[in-house]
């Protein structure tokens, strides 16, 4: 009976283990690449491409570590969403666009409640909660912007009620 329970527990827990093992092994691979290129660089043997890749690996390892514990891999303002993807990435939006969408790709936040909280001049103007259904989950909210000309719109991303990051966009005339 005990063995049976143990076998089933291992079977159920396996996906969780394999999940962290995969990410960990990728992080390990990046660390090894960084180490190797730095050794080459030290000896003056690194090529231009390797030096370029070194910077890329350093940036990438930070991103992977950040998202491993759950984060928004992408947080983008866009004019429209098509097939669950943003059509563009906006820094500002003209008021005649009438509305703007805020898109997020959530990674490793399965089972958590993620909120998009829209604010203008410190006042919350719209809030929407989402229950994350998988380790990769894309959600978006869309807001009419007509009343907010010349204002900065701030959208906060909350995970289980805790603000984790925010993005801003200016509404231009």
């Amino acid at each position, binding site marked *: 009976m005990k063995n049976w329970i143990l076998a089933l527990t291992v079977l159920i827990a396996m996906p969780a283990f394999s999940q962290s093992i995969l990410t960990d092994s*990728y992080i390990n691979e990046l660390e090894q690449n960084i180490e190797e290129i730095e050794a080459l660089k030290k000896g003056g043997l690194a090529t231009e491409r390797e030096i370029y890749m070194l910077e890329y690996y350093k940036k990438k390892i930070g991103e992977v570590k950040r998202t491993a514990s759950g984060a928004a891999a992408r947080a983008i303002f866009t004019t429209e969403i098509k097939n669950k993807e943003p059509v563009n990435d906006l820094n500002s939006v003209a008021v005649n666009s009438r509305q703007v969408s805020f898109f997020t790709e959530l990674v490793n936040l399965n089972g958590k409640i993620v909120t998009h909280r829209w604010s203008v001049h410190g006042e919350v103007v719209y809030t929407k909660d989402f229950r994350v259904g998988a380790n*990769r989950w894309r959600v978006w909210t869309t807001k009419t912007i007509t009343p907010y000309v010349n204002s900065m719109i701030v959208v906060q991303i909350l995970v289980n009620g805790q603000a984790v990051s925010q993005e801003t966009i200016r509404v231009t005339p």
Partner: protein
Amino acid sequence: MTKKMMAHGKQQRERTDNMTDPQNSADATISINPKRLAVILGIIVTLSGAVYKTYTVTTGYLDTLATKVEVKQSEINSSIELVSVTMMGYEDELIGYDFLIETDQATPADRVAKANVERRIQGLKEKLDRLETRSSELLNIQTGSDSVGSQIE
């Protein structure tokens, strides 16, 4: 062993005699039943204890078991992780090819390899989308709500 059995048989006969004798039948009831009662009660208590223990162990075990939906979602999450990590590997390769092309160092073979990597990344992205959709469908079955969607306020 045989002596014991003989003695036991003798006792049984005496008990039967006592019970059939109307004068001794009351005494016989008093002398036999408490022991038997104690034994029966002991068995009942032991059995009920065993049944209760089995019940608590079984329910405790059942509580630890995941539902079918949970197991399915766990599988999907593992697949998502696997596809994501594979995709990141291809993205690394792509960056290398991009550098070669931007610096005019790329050979025709590098350009073809880049196109192949891009195709693979696209295939993996589609796989990720399908996995996300499957998880969304599972969630809909479980909660009757759709978590992925556009909201206009």
